[in-house]
């Protein structure tokens, strides 16, 4: 009995500690300014206001930052998906010399400490005239998500029995048709899950966006804009929290969509680092 009560208490403490910062963010975003600035904070959203969201959306460049983030993350994910689909097919379905070495390379590439490559990529971007363009960010995010995409797609692909493909080929399909008509539809959920996690990585990335987009402030992405909220909103914490909430929204939606499929296996490499 005592054990059960203490377990329940511990569970509630863990829950509150993990949820509180996010709760506080959303709560602040909906609180009237006078409640935010009162000496005694309120813990429930009564009354609520949408003013802060209005302020955040009306901030200069809000929509272009939003568009930039979508373009960069979406472009990177599509590229990664295309390139990874080819490679993962080669690993999961074909036997060839050098396959093990290639897989090892992908695993190593997945562990790349990107933080150590800020300087050379800045220099390269400058030399090639790609500094201050969204292209370079797209390319970097593509490379960041590629190894993970290959590894997961290969896992999904390997889970689809080869027999299906072979049966289709026996029935007169070419290898390409068999892949397109039989494997691809089965792979679609895997493709979706993989690309959404890649999207999150790119959506959240800050370090490179901060270094590679300097002069042209309109080309910034949301994370960089958010980190400079002090310049944008001053001490308007309501608007800052509203902007953070809006920024987090797509990520949260993706997590909810993938809820059933969220296994530690899929998520690990994508969300951290």
């Amino acid at each position: 009995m005592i054990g059960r009560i203490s377990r329940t208490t511990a569970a509630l403490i863990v829950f509150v500690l993990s949820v509180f910062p996010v709760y506080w963010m959303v709560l602040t975003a909906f609180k009237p300014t006078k409640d935010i600035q009162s000496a005694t904070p309120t813990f429930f959203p009564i009354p609520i206001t949408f003013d802060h969201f209005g302020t955040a959306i009306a901030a200069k460049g809000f929509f272009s930052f939003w568009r930039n983030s979508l373009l960069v993350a979406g472009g990177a994910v599509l590229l990664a998906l295309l390139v990874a689909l080819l490679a993962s097919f080669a690993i999961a379905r074909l036997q060839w010399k050098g396959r093990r070495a290639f897989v090892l390379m992908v695993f190593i590439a997945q562990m790349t400490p990107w933080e150590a490559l800020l300087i050379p990529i800045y220099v390269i971007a400058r030399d090639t005239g790609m500094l201050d363009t969204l292209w370079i960010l797209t390319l970097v995010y593509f490379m960041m998500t590629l190894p993970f995409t290959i590894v997961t797609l290969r896992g999904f692909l390997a889970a689809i029995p080869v027999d299906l493909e072979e049966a289709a080929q026996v029935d007169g399909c070419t290898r390409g048709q068999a892949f397109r008509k039989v494997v691809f539809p089965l792979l679609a959920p895997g493709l979706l899950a993989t690309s959404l996690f890649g999207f999150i990585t790119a959506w959240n990335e800050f370090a490179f966006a901060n270094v590679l987009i300097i002069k042209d402030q309109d080309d910034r992405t949301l994370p960089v804009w958010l980190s400079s909220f002090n310049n944008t909103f001053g001490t308007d914490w309501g608007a800052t929290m509203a902007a953070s909430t809006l920024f987090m929204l797509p990520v949260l939606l993706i997590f909810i969509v993938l809820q059933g499929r969220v296994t530690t296996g899929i998520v690990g490499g994508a969300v951290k680092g």
Partner: protein
Amino acid sequence: MTLLAERPVRKTAPAPPKRRKFSVLPYLLIAPTLLTTAYLLFYPLVRNVVISLQEFGLPQLVRGDAKFVGLANYAKVLSDPEFWAVVKRTLWFTAINVVLIMVLSTLVALLLVRLGKGLRLLVMGGLVLTWATPIIAATTVFQWLFQSRLGVVNWALVALGFEEYRDYTWFADGEATFGILVTLIVWQSIPFAALSLYAAMITVPQELYESARIDGAGAWRVFTTITFPMLRAMFGLITCLEVIWVVKAFVQIWVISQGGPGQATTTLPVYAFQVAQSLQRYDLGAAVSMLMVVLLVLALLAYFRQLYRQEQET
């Protein structure tokens, strides 16, 4: 995590090919991956090594006529006491974070195993929410939580009777900022570690626990004699990953404190960036980041060894 995606491959790995004929198809399929990896990953890495061996400041960046200076940059970095202070701080920072992450995650995982379905889903939901929080959103919220005049943390501390925290400015004090960064990183890292450990723990056969309990073993004994030995490889794997992630943690530190106040929160990646960006000594920054890569490779080798062991055991 790669190892879990790896596993199903074993079962359905294609049988030896029927035709022994050499085919170019697989090489065509991996060509795009190889080319882009060469240009976007390998080339920057080589370029970093080259820059670290050159004299490369702002003039060379603009004119592009950098001269090779051998190992002079490394000699300069390694003889700088500031660098060693940064290394020491990085190791401390990593040790504190990883120990906290592993201990707390293990406790959370053990708790999850013992909870009823409803509470377990609640706690897991909370953990996933934390996990889903983007780093930038989290750093912004933590700045707000610890804000001096209106922050809820100071309010709570004062309400609990710690009068000295009224209007306390956390970010003006080195140790306090260090503490907040540790809290932030631990908070963000627990979901992954705890959920992975939980997933591993439920694979341990229930009979083992029952027989141990019949023998009168307490919770601690059950953990040290059954759970931990059974999952040793998993613990090793997660520890390695956390070490790697904490050593290279950059965004949280840069956004919250830029390594300050003073140098109180300057770890290796932050230091490399400061040297390159603020002092415009790209050569020294590149040298520092190469030294960091060496440190990470050591952790990575340990990780791959664990991965290999894990594969052997399953």
